[in-house]
């Protein structure tokens, strides 16, 4: 459970202030501009899914807590919610071959979680996105 961090309402209008917080944290950790953007994008996608799938579609209301910490060479962003449980590992995530389809043939879903699956990072800060779901 996150003991520190900022608390936001679990609504879509919290997305912008969440990004602003994460951007500030990432910049204070001296991440390069492109890495800041990728981090904000990943967090935004997770937060969006929490709001839409965890709360709105489930008919629930609640908060979204965002915490940040530096652990060694890692900047760790944690999100905590109390919405409907969800594990992206059991979701159909688009594969590279899906991206070869023409736009009019593509599926709408899955693009969001594509951005926050674990990926290899470059030298320096490790870009490793994972989600632990706290309820």
């Amino acid at each position, binding site marked *: 459970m996150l003991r520190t961090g900022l608390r936001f309402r679990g609504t879509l209008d919290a997305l912008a202030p969440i990004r602003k917080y994460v951007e500030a944290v990432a910049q204070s950790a001296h991440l390069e501009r492109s890495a800041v953007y990728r981090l904000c994008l990943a967090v935004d996608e997770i937060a969006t899914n929490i709001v*839409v799938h965890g709360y709105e579609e489930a008919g629930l209301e609640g908060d979204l807590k965002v915490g940040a910490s530096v652990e060694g060479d890692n900047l760790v962003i944690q999100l905590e919610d109390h919405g409907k449980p969800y594990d992206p590992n059991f979701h159909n995530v688009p594969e590279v071959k899906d991206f070869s389809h023409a736009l009019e043939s593509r599926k709408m879903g899955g693009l969001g979680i594509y951005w926050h699956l674990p990926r290899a990072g470059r030298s320096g800060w490790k870009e490793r996105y994972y989600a632990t779901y706290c309820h």
Partner: protein
Amino acid sequence: MPLQMSSSTEGKTARLTLAGELDGNSASSVRDAVDYVLQSHPERLVLSVEKLTFMASAGLRILIFAKQRQPDLKIYLVRPQDTILNTLHKTSFYQSVYVVDGESATN
């Protein structure tokens, strides 16, 4: 910066100018605007995004929506920022839209 948007249709070209941040909160208004301008069945949808500083997957879904609504539509992105260009590349959306430096290239 909150999303700012303007739209217009001239002949066979529909135009949307987007500035600020396009996320799950602002996407519905953009989708509605796209839906509206496509009612006239334009040949081209020109998205001026030079001042669009953030685009979540919701923005990509709008592109899918536009093409599914009108498969023969040509979509142009005018001067996307490098971060958004990177998103388009990584999801192969770059292959399905025309990325141009200026609106004159959309004619």
